[in-house]
């Protein structure tokens, strides 16, 4: 572990920030929806897929990205966009459906776009991967040393869009890194019955590209694998694949009864909390004290509270604004 204290602290802070956002959203989301849960009601309507538990993946990967690098996310992308550096206020306002949001209230939680960060995500599984290929293609055409990262779930790796994208990226030798977050489930469907290989790393062979598997609860492992993959892409040596083994701590979406889990499964994964794991390592080195950890948490909670206040105090779009922005 050759990483400096600064790097580790950055990783720790980013993961803590993601966690703070998700923890808060996991509370706020229910505001106005209970006692009888009504998905349409409350301050945040619609589905809500939280990233809690997977913080190490987005964090370890995006630590290598510049503002002008591209990230395409998924339906579960709060972590990705936070790690990419989004303004929390704008993100929160979007999730609250406000005019001050990233997308002025048109997109919502699943459709976060931040053109300054070259970030986009969406609700159709695997659909962001070919778009990331296109981002990478533009970079190559412009002779830039930028890279594109496509995040996807292990479920998405069974979609045709994944195959077509990987093949294109390989044939065109594009600066693309595909990061598969293997959290074992696509909603309720376990990888064991959805995926013909134990690890999607095997699928790198099908495109002649490097592929590595990492412990996705260990941000350092993710960081190191991504370092190599991103550098390779930046050097113009083409695409590669990372599969990170991880787990979602809160079910597929809020309201998921998780009847499909085996007993004790979630509890044992929760023992592998990526923030705790990194914290322990840092503490062992004397690079983090309990007090410092505490103060980071307080700081992040504060940032989130600020963002939430901003969101709540922001106006809604006017109803008729729905008729705008169909065409540029």
């Amino acid at each position, binding site marked *: 572990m050759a990483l400096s204290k600064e790097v580790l602290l950055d990783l720790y802070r980013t993961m803590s920030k993601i966690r703070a956002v998700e923890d808060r959203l996991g509370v706020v989301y229910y505001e106005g929806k209970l006692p009888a849960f009504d998905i349409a009601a409350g301050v945040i309507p619609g589905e809500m897929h939280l990233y809690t538990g997977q913080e190490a993946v987005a964090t370890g990967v995006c630590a290598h990205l510049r503002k002008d690098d591209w990230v395409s996310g998924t339906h579960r992308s709060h972590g990705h966009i936070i790690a990419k550096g989004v303004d929390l206020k704008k993100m929160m306002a979007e999730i609250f459906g406000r005019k001050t949001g990233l997308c002025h209230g048109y997109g919502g*939680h699943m459709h976060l776009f931040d053109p300054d960060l070259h970030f986009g995500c969406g609700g159709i599984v695997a659909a962001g991967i070919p778009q990331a290929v296109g981002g990478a293609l533009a970079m190559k055409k412009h002779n830039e040393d930028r890279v594109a990262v496509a995040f996807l779930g292990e479920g998405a790796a069974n979609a045709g869009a994944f195959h077509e994208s990987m093949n294109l990226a390989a044939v065109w030798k594009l600066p693309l890194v595909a990061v598969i977050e293997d959290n074992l489930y696509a909603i309720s*469907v376990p990888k064991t019955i959805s995926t013909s290989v134990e690890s999607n790393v095997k699928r790198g062979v099908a495109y002649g590209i490097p592929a590595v598997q990492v412990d996705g609860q260990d941000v350092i492992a993710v960081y190191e694998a991504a370092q190599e993959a991103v550098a390779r892409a930046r050097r113009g040596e083409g695409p590669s694949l990372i599969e990170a083994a991880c787990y979602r701590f809160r079910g597929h979406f809020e309201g998921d009864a998780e009847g499909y889990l085996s007993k004790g499964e979630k509890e044992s994964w929760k023992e592998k909390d990526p923030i705790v794991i990194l914290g322990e390592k840092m503490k062992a080195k004397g690079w983090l004290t309990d007090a410092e950890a505490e103060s980071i948490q307080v700081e992040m909670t504060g940032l989130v509270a600020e963002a939430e206040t901003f969101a709540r105090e922001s106006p809604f779009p006017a109803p008729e604004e729905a008729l705008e922005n169909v065409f540029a």
Partner: protein
Amino acid sequence: MTERLLTQSKAIAEAIAQEMERDQDVFVMGEDIGAYGGIFGATEGLLQKFGPERIMDTPISETGFVGAGIGAAMEGMRPIVEIMFADFTGVVTDQLINHMAKIHYMSGGTVKIPMVVMLAMGGGYGDAAQHSQCLYGMFAHIPGIKIVVPSSPYDAKGLMIQAIRDDNPVMYFFHKGTQGLGWMTPNPRATGPVPEVPYTIPFGVADIKREGKDVTIVSLGLMLQRSLDAAEKLAAEGIEAEVIDLRTVVPLDKKTIIQSVQKTHRLLIVDEDYKSFGLSGELSAIVAEEALEYLDTPVKRLAVPDVPIPYSRPMEQFIQPSLETIVANARGLAAA
């Protein structure tokens, strides 16, 4: 004897279960239709009853498993394939429109594709542009697919059994808001009497849910239910709306609509799909072409005004036909 009440989702699951018991060749494929019971409850309890061989959770491979449904249907089975949201049909449109819809025709009638594609549609709960579409108008444009949209538990069961027994491909679009799910906005019309015995409802027969003489309202799905609510309000004002539930978009029961317009001379179409180039235009065109002389005033269409579904609540509510806009438009027509 008290009637048995079921939610629409349970009515659908019961229809499937009864057909699966009757016919070993009926099976279900889709994402999260097993242990989860279907994201919108349409397959609840089926895994427990029939096991994983007949209730098959699939990978996220819509082209793969819908295509597999077609192949199994060609081999004489009767697959029911769930595509979780109508919005996701985009990843499998080829199998739906170029194969499922056309193989019977291309084969000169020698091959049959008896399959049901079941989809959840519709918005109104903040799920935004890629999870709130209806899209039946898009598929209705393609010859060779029957299109069903139930709007009550009773119809949902009868139309599902009919769909399974039909020798043709059927796309069965249910509205999430009419399923009677515990986590959706409570909807009294989503629960209703459903006989336990299996029964069918023929396709192409619209249902006059409420008779009236002042204005005809044609609708389907959640909008039909909303139109019934509107009709109650209108009745309180002395306006008698005739409310017609299409039940199937293909085949389309032109006759019932035209006969109603001949009586009321006014037509309001209430549709949650996009307005242009779809169902509402077709209905409006048909009436204008076939009952022009009976129209006292132009047909009025209430539909999503050609915008993607926005996320933020005020905008989403603005673009969906609402109780208020239905009442106002019907009132306007009745006065014209």
